[in-house]
C-alpha cells in the first residue's frame, strides 16, 4: 500500500515537483527525554541511550548525561547500568536474566526526575536461517529468512551494520620532496618513490573500511501467516554503489519484539519514513512505554522491552556481480614530471602512479589527483582491517 502511494507521488511529480521546504514556523524548544535500547535477556550487555529532543530547524543529538539507570525484575532482581560515554549507559558485558521474569527500567535523570518503563516479558528471538541477496533493478537487494517452530515470536525487528572495503582510485607510489630553493627563498619540489627499494605503493592510503549503521526501521510479523516463517527484504544497494566496489559485508541483527513494541515502531516508521505521498496517512502522536513518574503528562519517547539478539554476517565481492559499474567521481590528470609543474601543485594535489616512462627508464609524466582520490582515509573510513574481513 505504502509503495503504491510513493509511486503515485513519483508519477504525479513528473508533472508536479518536490521542493525542499523550510518551515517558517519557529519550532518550540521541547527537550523531551528519548529512551532508546532494550533490556538484553540473551546473556549479553544491555545498552540504553538517553537523549533529548531538539528543535526542527537545528536537529542535534543532545545526550542526557549523569542519569542513573537500573533494570528491575519482577523477581526483585536489579541490574545497574553505568554511563560509558555521554548519554550511553551500559550494563556489565554479560548479565544473565531469568527468562521467566518480567523486566523494566527505572531512570533518574540528573535533574532528579524519575521515569519508568512498563514491565515487559522476555521475548525470545529465533536464530537467523539465512541472509541472501539477489539482483533487483540492477542493484542488490538483501533478504532475511527465519522461522520459529515454537511460534514464540511473531513480531520481528532488524537492524544492520554495513562495512565495505574501498580502494583509492589512484595508488600512491610517489611522494613530493623539497629538491631545493630558488631566489629569493622559494622551495622547489620533485618526485620520489615512497619505497625506493621494492617500488611499491602506500598501502595505508589505498585500502579503507567504511562502516555505516542502518537508519531505517525494519519490521515484519507472522501474525497473519499460516506458518511462522519470514522472508523479508532488508537493505537495498543501488546499482553502481561504492559499497560493492570491492568487498561488502553486512551484519544483520534480528530481534523478537512484543506486539506493543511492534505497533509503536510501526507508527514511528509511518510518521517519519513513510510520509510524503498523495494519500498520506496523517502523522500521529506516539505513546511509548516509558513514563515520567514525576509528571505523568510529560511526553517521553521510547519503548523498552526485554529481548535477545541474533545476528549473521554476510559478504559480497564485486567479482560476484556482473556489470556493477562502480565509477569513482575522482578526476585523475597527467602531469609532466618537472620541478616547475610539481612545485605548482604539490600543496593541493597528490601524486599517484607513473604515466609515461622515458626510453631510458626515467619518469616523463605521472598521474595525480585530489587528496580524496589518493588517501582513502579522508572519505572512506579507517584503514584498519576488521578482524572478520576475508583475505
Amino acid at each position, binding site marked *: 500500500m505504502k509503495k503504491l502511494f510513493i509511486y503515485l507521488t513519483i508519477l504525479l511529480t513528473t508533472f508536479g*515537483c518536490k521542493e525542499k521546504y523550510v518551515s517558517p514556523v519557529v519550532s518550540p524548544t521541547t527537550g523531551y527525554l528519548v529512551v532508546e535500547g532494550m533490556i538484553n535477556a540473551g546473556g549479553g550487555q544491555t545498552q540504553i541511550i538517553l*537523549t533529548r529532543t531538539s528543535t526542527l530547524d537545528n536537529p542535534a543529538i543532545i545526550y542526557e548525561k549523569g542519569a542513573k539507570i537500573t533494570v528491575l525484575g519482577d523477581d526483585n532482581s536489579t541490574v545497574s547500568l553505568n554511563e560509558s560515554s555521554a548519554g550511553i549507559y551500559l550494563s556489565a558485558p554479560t548479565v544473565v536474566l531469568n527468562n521467566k521474569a518480567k523486566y523494566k527500567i527505572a531512570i533518574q535523570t540528573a535533574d532528579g526526575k524519575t521515569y519508568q518503563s512498563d514491565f515487559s516479558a522476555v521475548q525470545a528471538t529465533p536464530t537467523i536461517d539465512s541472509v541472501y541477496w539477489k539482483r533487483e533493478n540492477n542493484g542488490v537487494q538483501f533478504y532475511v529468512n527465519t522461522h520459529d517452530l515454537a511460534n514464540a515470536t511473531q513480531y520481528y525487528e532488524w537492524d544492520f551494520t554495513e562495512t565495505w572495503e574501498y580502494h583509492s582510485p589512484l595508488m600512491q607510489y610517489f611522494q613530493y620532496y623539497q629538491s631545493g630553493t630558488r631566489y629569493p627563498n622559494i622551495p622547489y619540489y620533485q618526485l620520489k618513490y615512497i619505497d625506493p627499494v621494492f617500488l611499491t605503493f602506500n598501502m595505508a592510503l589505498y585500502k579503507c573500511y567504511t562502516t555505516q549503521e542502518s537508519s531505517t526501521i525494519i519490521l515484519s510479523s507472522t501474525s497473519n501467516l499460516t506458518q511462522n516463517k519470514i522472508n523479508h527484504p532488508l537493505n537495498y544497494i543501488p546499482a553502481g554503489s561504492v559499497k560493492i566496489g570491492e568487498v561488502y559485508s553486512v551484519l544483520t541483527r534480528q530481534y523478537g519484539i512484543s506486539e506493543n513494541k511492534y505497533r509503536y515502531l510501526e507508527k514511528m516508521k509511518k510518521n517519519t519514513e513513510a510520509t510524503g505521498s498523495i494519500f498520506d496517512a496523517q502523522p500521529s502522536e506516539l505513546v511509548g512505554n516509558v513514563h515520567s513518574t514525576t509528571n505523568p503528562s510529560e511526553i517521553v519517547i521510547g519503548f523498552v522491552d526485554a529481548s535477545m539478539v541474533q545476528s549473521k554476517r554476510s559478504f559480497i565481492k564485486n567479482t560476484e556481480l556482473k556489470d556493477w559499474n562502480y565509477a569513482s567521481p575522482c578526476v585523475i590528470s597527467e602531469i609532466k614530471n618537472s620541478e616547475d609543474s610539481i612545485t605548482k601543485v604539490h600543496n593541493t594535489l597528490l601524486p599517484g602512479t607513473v604515466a609515461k616512462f622515458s626510453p631510458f627508464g626515467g619518469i616523463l609524466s605521472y598521474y595525480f589527483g585530489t587528496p580524496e582520490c589518493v588517501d582513502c582515509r579522508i572519505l572512506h573510513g579507517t584503514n584498519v582491517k576488521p578482524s572478520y574481513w576475508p583475505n
Partner: protein
Amino acid sequence: MQKYLKVIFILAAMAFIHKGYSQLDSARRINLSGNKISISELTNQLEAQTKLHFYYNPVLFAKEQFSPNFNNEKIATVFAKLFGQQAIFYSLDNQDNVFLTKGKQLNIQLTERYFSGIKVDQNSNDALADYDESNSIKEALLDKTIYEIGDKNTGGNKKTIVLGGFVKDAKTGEPIAGASVNIDNPRIGVNTDQYGGFTLSLPRGKHVLNIQSIGMRDIKRQIVLYNDGKMNVDMIQSIMSLKKVVISSQKISNVRGTQMGVQRLDIKTIKQVPAIFGEPDILRVVTTLPGVKTVGEASTGLNVRGGSSDQNLILFNDATIYNPSHFFGMFSAFNPELVSNVELYKSSIPASYGGRLSSVLDINSREGNKKEFTGSAGLGLLTSRLNIEGPIVKDKSSFILGGRTTYSNWLFKQLPDEYKNSGADFYDLNLITTHELNKNNTLYFTAYVSKDQFKLNSDTSYSYGNKNLSVKWKHLFTSKLNSVFTTGIDQYNYEINSQKLPLNAYKLGFDIQQSYFKAHFNYFYNNKHSFDFGVNAINYLLHPGNYDPAGPESIIAKDHLQQEQGLEGALYFSDHYTVTSKLKIDAGIRASMFNAMGPNSFNTYAAGSPRIVENILSSTNYTSGQVSKSYGGPEYRLGFRYVIDETLSLKGGINTQRQYIHSLSNTTAMAPTDIWKLSDPNIKPQLGNQVSLGLYKNLRSNTIEASMEVYYKTIENYLDYKSGAILVMNHHIETDVIGTKGKAYGAEFLLKKLSGKLNGWVSYTWSRILLQQNDPKAGELINGGIEYPANYDKPNDFSIIANYKFSHRFSISLNSNYSTGRPITLPIGTYQYDGSFRTLYAGRNAYRIPDYFRTDFSMNIEGNHKVKQLLHNSWSIGVYNLTGRRNPYSIYYVSENGAVNGYKLSIFGNAIPYINLNIRFK
C-alpha cells in the same frame, strides 16, 4: 370538443389535399413499366419523371414488389393503382415530398401530438409524428394555433384547471429539464423536472403559455382551458443563427424557487470550463461552486459545507457511485458526453433523498436521440471517448451507449527505470435506454461499469471498479398523480494483488453491494398544495476485507473479516405549500431506520470506558438476518421562500440528516482503498443538523443572479481516527476510530450570469469546520480535547469561471481559484532513534500549508456550422495552471539517510497545455 377538433382536422387536411392535388394535376403524365421491381427502382423512376421526392422506411418496404404498367397516366391514378392495391398509404406535403407509410397514414399537418389525454380526437392522436419540415413553417403555425384543452360545453365550470405535460427537444426527442413554463397574467410558473415534465394549475380561460430554456428558442402557445388536460411541447434548438439570438431574460427561478442551496449545472456550462488534459470534469466544476471544497488537486472527493467526502450521496441516474474518480483522482468517473445536467443540493435537501449528511449530487444522463442515429467522439492526450445514440423504435425508444478509455502508458515511459514496467488504465461504459411504452408509462434502463487498474513493476497490482444497474419506471396515474419506481444494484470493489515475495504473496479484496427499491409519488393536489411522498429501501452487503494467499508458495493466512449486512428504510412525505403568492413553504419529514443484521458478531465493551482492546468484555453472535442493532428517527426538511419584490426573495431552511454508512480513512485525500463501514452496535450513525438562510436577487432584468447564504451546522458522531489507526483488515475497527463532534458555519456568495457574450460565475465562501473530541470515556482526547480544524477546513475560497464568446465559432474560458491552505500537522521537533533523526509530532492540524491559487485558460474552436454536414468538429486548446504556480499539495518531513528533510509537494507544478478534438457525427 370532438366535433370542433374534427372540423379543424378536416379543414386542415383539405387545404393540404387540395394543394397537393393541384400540384399533381399540373405535373406531367407518367410512363412507367416494369416487372416486380423494388421500391427504390420505382421511386427512382418516379423521381426522374416528376419533381417529387419520396420518403419511406426501407426496412418496411424491402419486400414490396411492384409491376407498374402505365402509359401517359395521371399521377393520381398511378398512385392509386400502385399503392392502393398494396395497402400503402401516401401523403403529400406542399413541397413535393411524398411520404409512404404502412398501416397508418402520415399526417402532414399536425406536427405535434399536442392534445393527449382527456377527450382527444382519436384520429389526430393516432397520426404519426412529423418528418422533416422547415422549422419556420412549423413554428409560425403552432404559435398562431389556439389550443383548446377540455370541451367548452362538457368541461364543467371548475375555476382552476390542471395542465400537465412534457417539454422535449424537437430534434432529438430528449426531455428538457429545467425549462421554465409560465403564464404572464396572473404570474404562475414552474420549471420542468428531469423528465421534462410540468404540472401547472391555472385559472379557467385563455392564456399565453411561455416556455423557455437555455439554448432553445422561446416558445409561446395560446391555450384556452376548459378542463384538466395535457399538452406536450417540442422545443427547437437555437443553433447557429447568425442573426443575433436574444435569449429571453425571464430567469426567475433563482428568486422564485423554494429550494435553497441548490446548484444546477448544465453540461454545456461544464464543458466550457478548462480541465486537466482537456477532459471535461463534472466534479471539478462542482468544486468551483460556493460551499464546495476539495482537499487537493489529486482528489475528486468533495467537501460540502464542512462535510467529509463520504457525506455526499453521488447518484448517477439513481445509482449510488461509491468511487467517483479515475486515475488516482485526476479524472471523475462520469462521461461528460452522456450527462445532461448535475444538481447539487447542499442545504434544503428534498425529503426524497437521504442517507448522507452533507449533500446530494444528482447526475442525470441524457436520453438517446429518438429520431436518428448520431454519435460523438473525443480525442485527448490521455483519454478518448466514443458515444453512439439513436432510436430503437423511432420516437418511442432510444439508447445511448458511451465509453471512455485511457492510453496513459506514454506517461509511464517518462518515469525512472524502476517504474517503467508499471502502467495504469481505466475505462467506463454506460448504456442508457429509454422506452416510452405509452403516454403514461416510460421505462428507463441504466447500466454503468467503471474499472481502474494500475500496477507497480508488474509485481503489485491494484484495481477498483463500480458496477451499477438500474431500472426506472415512470408512471402517470392521472395528470395530478405521477410516480417513479426505481430498483437496482450498485456495487463497488477493490482488489490488491502482491506477488513480490512468493512466500507473502497475497490478494486483498473489499466489496460493497447494495440493492435498492424506491417508489416516489408526486400528487398535485391543488394550486396551494403539491405532495411528494414515497418509500426507499436499501439492502447493504459488505465484505470489509478478504485477505487471501496468492500462489502455491504463499503462507499468508486466509483472513476474512466478517461480512456486514444492513437494511436501511425510509418513508417520506413533503408538501409544497403555496401560502400566498409571496410565501411558499416546503415542509417534509423523512423517517429513516437502519437495522444492522447478522450473521456476525460484535464486541461488547465495558460501559463508560474507552473502546480499546483491553476493555472488550465479550462478543455477541448474531444469526443470519438477526438484527444486532436498530437505529432510526425522523429527519426534518423545512424550507420557505418569501418574495420581497419581483427580483428579491428571502429563503430559509432547517435540515436534519442521518447517515448509516461511513467511509473510514486516515489519509487526507480520498484514496481508492478507503473502506466503507456500516453502523453497528459499536459505530453509531452520524447525525447532522443544518440551519440556513439566504437572500436571492436578480439584477439587470434577470440576466444576473445573485445570492447569499449563511449556514450553521452541527455533526454528531463524525468518525475521526485515533493516532496511528489501522483501518485495513482490522477485526475490531471500533477501537481505532473515534466519534467526534463537528460544527461548521459559513457564508456563501454567488454571482452568476448564464447568458450573453460574457457569462460565468463568481463565488466566494467563508467557512469553518471544527471538530472536537473531549470525552475521556470515548478514548484518547485529540489535541487535549480542544477544537481542531478538519483536514479540509479552508476558510477563504474564491472562484471565477468566465467565458467570452467572440463568435459562434470561437470562445475563450478562464477559470481562477484562490483558497486558504488546508490544515496540516507539522513536526515540532526532532529526535534520534534507530539510527536516524526523526520528527516529533504533537497537535493535530495545528498549521496550514501556503495558500492556493490557480488559473486555467482554454479556447474552444467550433468547426463550420452547416447543420447538414456529417461531421461536426470542435477543438479545445488550453493550459491548466497558466501561471505555473507551484501550489503545495502537501508539506511533509521524512527521515532519509539519517537526516530529516522537509519537502513541499506540488502536483501540477507547471503550466500543463492540452489539446482535445471532439467530433460529432450522424
